[in-house]
């Protein structure tokens, strides 16, 4: 939260200096508006990842993987196993720090040529990958 607030405060000071030459009423109004907007943004920066995370889910069955994502626009994406071209399990530095991973499913499609499933535990991502790849139908990724 601090990481978000600090640049906003800095930005506010800069804007304040910039509009310093304007009339007093306008200055007060702008300051209030800026405060409101930055508070809202700060709250969103804090709460949004959790809201977003709560709306990501996936379901595996023998034939498909189904991925649900989106808070405002909600999408349910269904990929038949036979259409999976290849799969990446990627870890950025932060994800590595917390033992997380992003699963990327590649298909031959155009708009949905790559479908991401972020925020999985690394072992879980590997298990899903193994279940999606051909020849691992009976392999259980003990779906904890």
């Amino acid at each position: 939260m601090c990481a978000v607030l600090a640049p906003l405060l800095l930005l506010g000071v800069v804007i304040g200096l910039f509009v310093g030459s304007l009339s007093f009423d306008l200055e007060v109004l702008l300051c209030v508006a800026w405060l409101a907007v930055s508070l809202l943004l700060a709250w969103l920066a804090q709460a949004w990842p959790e809201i977003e995370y709560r709306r990501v889910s996936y379901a595996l069955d023998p034939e498909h993987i189904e991925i649900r994502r989106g808070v405002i626009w909600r999408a349910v994406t269904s990929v038949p196993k036979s259409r999976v071209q290849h799969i990446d399990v990627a870890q950025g530095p932060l994800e590595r720090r917390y033992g997380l991973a992003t699963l990327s499913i590649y298909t031959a499609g155009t708009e949905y040529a790559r479908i991401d499933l972020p925020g999985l535990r690394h072992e879980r991502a590997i298990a899903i990958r193994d279940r999606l790849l051909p020849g691992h139908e009976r392999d259980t990724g003990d779906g904890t």
Partner: protein
Amino acid sequence: MGRHLRALLLPAVAVIFTAGSSGRDWDLWLVLLLIPYTLAALARSLSFRYRFDADELVVRKGWVFRSERHIPYGRIQNIDAVQNVLHRALGVAEVRVETASGGEPEATMTVLPVTALTEMREFVFSDRQSSASTREPEAIDNATELLRLRPSEVLLYGFIESRGAVIMAGGFGVLWELGLFDRAFERVTGTELAGGGVIRQILRAAIGQAAVSLRAVIVTILFFVALLLVLRVLSMGWAYVRLHGFVLRRRGDDVRVDYGLLTRVSGTIPLQRIQTLTIAESPLHRLFDRVSVHVDTAGGNGSEEQPTRREPIAPLFRRGDLESLISALLPSVSLGHVEWQRPHAHAVRRARVRTGILAAVASGLAVGVLKWSSIAVVLALAVWAWVYARKYVAHLGWAFVGDAVVFRSGWLWRHLTVARFSKLQVITRVESPFDRRTGMARVRVDTAGATSSEHTIDIPFLPAETATELAATLSARAAETAFRW
């Protein structure tokens, strides 16, 4: 059958010519600059080798940096050949071998003898059913002709498509330089100094600053009518050059198109590789009782940089015979009697919100600019918003036909897209906040090679349960089939 074949691809003369034509001016300096380029091109093409192995095409190129590329026959989506005037004079062709990798063709052979091209087609496309040796070479006789465009039809295509604007934009600069348009435009638009042009007068009158003469109105209308006609005529000329002698043939499990007056293009598409098929019609199409039919393949036909964009598989087709064309291209699909499924009962309301917002914004602008005289414009926009929403929803529909899903949309410009279950990649059900409030959802179907298509299967305003059911069915049907590109 691993017959090795080596072909020296390139007569040196052709290289110098094609390399030279890339520079516009034949200044000495440019020619000097071209020499290393030409040498490099020469070296590259002299080092170019290809051979046909039992089940793959092997292309080797490079002198300093060598590369050898193996392309399995089964992965080749289509083989296109382009011959410009120079190519034809020398009896060679530029050949592009496309796989599903998208973008760039897998292998481009700039100058390949025509006989070698024929041989290559034989090798690549005969692989599926029988061995190459038993097939007679390039038998056009046993091919069924699906469409042959007579010159009048080609001109009609140009008239309907109206690509004139593009040509105009290109030619405009040239004509402007020559000063041909100056006088004509001065009369109509008026120059900054004289300020007496007809369009200026009318704009002033609309804003309410001056009276408008009847003569001015007539001249303006005539000017725009003339402009439209010129654009159409240019487009017809373009179509005549581009599509002259268009023939679409089916031979076994492939279709082949040939066209072009100066630059001959010939493309081969295996039917198996057709991902989606789209039927498009504009009001003009309906006036002449025609449609145009496009197909998407997974090959690199979507790359915009390529000067030779692929034309529709049937640029202009009589609507009455459509059934025969569809059954030739997609044997398992029949569009004779389709039981169209309708969108949500309240879909018109949703559509009306959209057109209403558009109309409101446009009316706002009109009122801002035209003041009182904008009443007519605002009324027209309101009527348009009302009618368009109704008509748009009335023409929405989807259906299962054979082993495919069909989706149609559009009121004046209509599209109908067919995708076989075996070509579906990803099925998505999308719900916007507005959808949630009205109990609707949208189902999108993604296929390979859809980058270039203007219409995809993307069904809006479905009842929420229908959408869930449809997505599940499509996904299940897709999973039943194996995807073979």
